[in-house]
């Protein structure tokens, strides 16, 4: 049982509230669900739509057309979505939602109340138990939800798509919440940022934590300032991060290079949206992989993660701070609007112990850039001992003083750049799913993980043998990471949300692996499982061409 609903309306009309409240209730009631949204870069008007998928089994992607139900809060919804309604699906027309609105207004004194009424309607359609609904909802909403149920009953939709609640009480999080949570678990105590879609809510969740936890969010005057503030905080001893999107990340490039030169640990979240320039600010894309892998002038080591699930996002975000510290490098978390805006339930248990960095010891003979065997010098922070901590963006000697000793220069490059070998050994392997023996292996990275996973499963059900491989770490790529999966002897297909097939090209450069086909999408929307199945089916059954 698998049910997909779309709620369409103008910005500011309430569709988001419906989604938010519905997912809250669904989580409380123990439903498996997945929700995401598609919205314009404006505050009022236009046309946004919110999609919720509810099932009797874990779901983590959009299924694809047709819709089982459509709720229209504006006229555009009819035009845009109705053609995609399944036969026998429920269409809640603008007239019907108007009726609900006017009843909400007369009975509860506000149109806003109609949002909860719509949620009550939805819950009734999927056959949610009315007592459990009443128990799970707060006092204030109980009546409203009930009213929604009456509408469903009146219009004969109650229990029309009954779905049993089969999930435990999992954690409900969107991608940006997961990243902020992971950061806090990783001991991050300082974040600086400048609002930018789709990264802003990471800052929001971090600044909310600051109300009671020992963390601080500082809104910077621009992204240049943000990254330099974070580097200052990190230098001073506090784990630090920034989050931004393409244009803001462009402004951080010099700071990235500064992190590399000064070996100052930092975690940088790049939440991708379609570019170039301002592009489509509220849509999704995966076109900044090349940009982040090559960010900053000069040569230095880095790690780039691209989590594909809530759990992985929490884990990689958390670990990023340890890795940034251990290797004294910038660690990047590459995500996107689709991931940021998708609400998912985590089925597995989360490791929720916050980490804490033990204060390092240093004495008066301390040298920040001491040349050591493995190229990593001990970290220390100012004011905690008699040691002075000196850090320099110029080429420097072991003490952090400017040098123009060219022999030392070479050693310092080897120190900074040579630690790539250490990073290789610490690489996080990709995740395999589907039929491990299949001839065709489909590669993906970042937010496409769970879409592909379901597509591979669905095709498997049709008898199309496929395996999928998801890279949560996209840089560095090492031979060891792929060794178990025999990439050289399989037909490889890559799936990416960009026009250039950037990951496939990186794989070729780094590991000499060549994909034979790419499934690319770059209109600003994520893949759905259905559409990915169609593309992969065509590729696999279309033979070797």
């Amino acid at each position: 049982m698998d049910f997909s609903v779309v709620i369409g309306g103008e910005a500011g009309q309430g569709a988001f509230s419906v989604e938010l409240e519905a997912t809250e209730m669904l989580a409380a009631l123990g439903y498996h669900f997945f929700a995401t949204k598609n919205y314009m870069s404006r505050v009022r008007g236009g046309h946004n739509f919110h999609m919720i998928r509810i099932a009797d089994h874990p779901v983590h992607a959009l299924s694809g057309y047709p819709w089982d139900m459509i709720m229209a809060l504006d006229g555009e919804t009819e035009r845009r979505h109705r053609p995609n309604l399944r036969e026998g699906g429920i269409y809640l027309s603008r007239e019907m939602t108007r009726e609900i609105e006017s009843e909400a207004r007369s009975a509860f004194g506000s149109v806003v109340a109609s949002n909860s009424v719509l949620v009550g309607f939805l819950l009734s359609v999927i056959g949610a138990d009315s007592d459990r609904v009443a128990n799970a909802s707060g006092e204030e909403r109980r009546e409203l939800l009930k009213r929604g149920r009456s509408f469903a009953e009146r219009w004969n939709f109650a229990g029309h798509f009954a779905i049993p609640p089969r999930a435990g009480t999992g954690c409900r999080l969107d991608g940006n919440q997961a990243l902020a949570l992971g950061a806090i678990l990783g001991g991050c105590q300082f974040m600086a940022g400048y609002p930018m879609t789709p990264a802003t809510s990471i800052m929001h969740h971090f600044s909310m934590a600051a109300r009671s936890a020992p963390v601080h969010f500082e809104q910077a005057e621009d992204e240049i300032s943000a990254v330099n503030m974070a580097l200052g905080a990190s230098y001073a001893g506090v784990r630090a991060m920034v989050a931004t999107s393409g244009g803001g990340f462009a402004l951080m490039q010099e700071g990235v290079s500064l992190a590399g030169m000064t070996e100052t640990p930092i975690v940088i979240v790049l939440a991708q949206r379609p570019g170039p320039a301002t592009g489509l600010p509220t849509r999704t894309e995966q076109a900044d992989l090349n940009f982040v892998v090559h960010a900053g002038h000069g040569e230095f080591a880095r790690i780039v993660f691209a989590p594909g699930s809530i759990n992985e996002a929490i884990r990689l975000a958390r670990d990023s701070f340890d890795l940034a510290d251990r290797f004294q490098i910038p660690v990047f978390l590459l995500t996107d609007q689709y991931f940021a805006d998708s609400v998912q339930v985590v089925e597995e248990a989360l490791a929720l112990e916050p980490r804490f960095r033990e204060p390092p010891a240093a004495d008066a003979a301390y040298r920040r850039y001491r040349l050591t065997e493995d190229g990593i010098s001990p970290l220390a922070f100012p004011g905690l001992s008699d040691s002075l901590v000196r850090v320099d963006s110029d080429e420097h000697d072991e003490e952090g003083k400017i040098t123009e000793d060219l022999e030392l220069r070479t050693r310092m490059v080897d120190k900074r750049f040579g630690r790539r070998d250490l990073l290789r050994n610490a690489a996080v392997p990709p995740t395999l799913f589907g039929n491990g023996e299949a001839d065709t292996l489909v590669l993906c990275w970042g937010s496409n993980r769970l879409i592909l996973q379901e597509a591979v499963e669905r095709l498997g059900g049709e008898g199309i043998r496929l395996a999928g491989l998801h890279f949560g770490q996209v840089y560095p790529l090492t031979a060891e990471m792929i060794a178990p999966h025999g990439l050289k002897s399989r037909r490889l297909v890559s799936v990416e949300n960009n026009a250039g097939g950037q990951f496939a090209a990186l794989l070729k450069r780094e590991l000499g692996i060549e994909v034979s086909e790419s499934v690319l999408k770059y209109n600003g929307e994520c893949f759905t499982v259905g559409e990915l199945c169609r593309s992969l089916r065509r590729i696999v059954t279309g033979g070797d061409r």
Partner: protein
Amino acid sequence: MTTARSDIAWCPGCGNFAIRDALEKAIRELPVPRKDIVLTSGIGQAAKMPHYIDVNFFNGLHGRSLPLAVGIKLARPDLTVIAYSGDGCHYGEGGNHFIQTIRRRLDITILVSDNQVYALTKGQTSPTTDPGTVNSLDPEGNRNLPLNPVLLALSMGAPFVARGYAGEKSHLKDLIREAILFRGTSVVDILQPCVSFNRTNTYEWYGDRVYRLRKPRTGLFQAMKTAAVWGDRIPIGVLYRNEEAECRTGKTLYGERITDEDIRNQLGLPCVMMR
């Protein structure tokens, strides 16, 4: 460790030597151990300053000494933070940080070697260069209005604003000390002769013009008027000192642990549609 004069990469006669001595003395007179002092700087001749003073430092990017200072101060309110750079760094490339850092009301000291030129890159027009000045990138003479740093700082609400002069070393030392001790954002623009690239604003030129203010102006507009004085007479000293201005302090972060409760709170937050 003390820095030998010969290791200093400035030209003989450079105003920065005197400023360095003043800063060094001021630091010595502070009731703060050196290990608790951090100098940040950008890039330029002035920005090399931290290398010649025995304290912690983060010599960062051109124009970016202030965000570093803000990050350090917020992360570690226990540290004494001084941002040092030149006029090009603080007022040119870093102009936005200069105005916005003042708005943050943190206890940071901003010191500027103002030689009215981009010295390290060999003599180009800076934001404080006199109109008409000719140089390699301005063969027809500077066409822009120069910026008045102290007036700008005042208009942004800085509670402590002073002008110093490299040629008045002990006066300068006192100014710097007072600025560091002041609780709040303090700005000291220091007139610094550059013997290699600034042929106008020389020691002699300043010598004829500079006079000391007896005490800070009372009232912002009085201070602004004094700040605007520039020409035959150039006032140095504390232009403005606002004891009432509130200073923002960050909370203690270093060494504090995030608790399980913090995590639980975090899990309870609703999603938002504010990407």
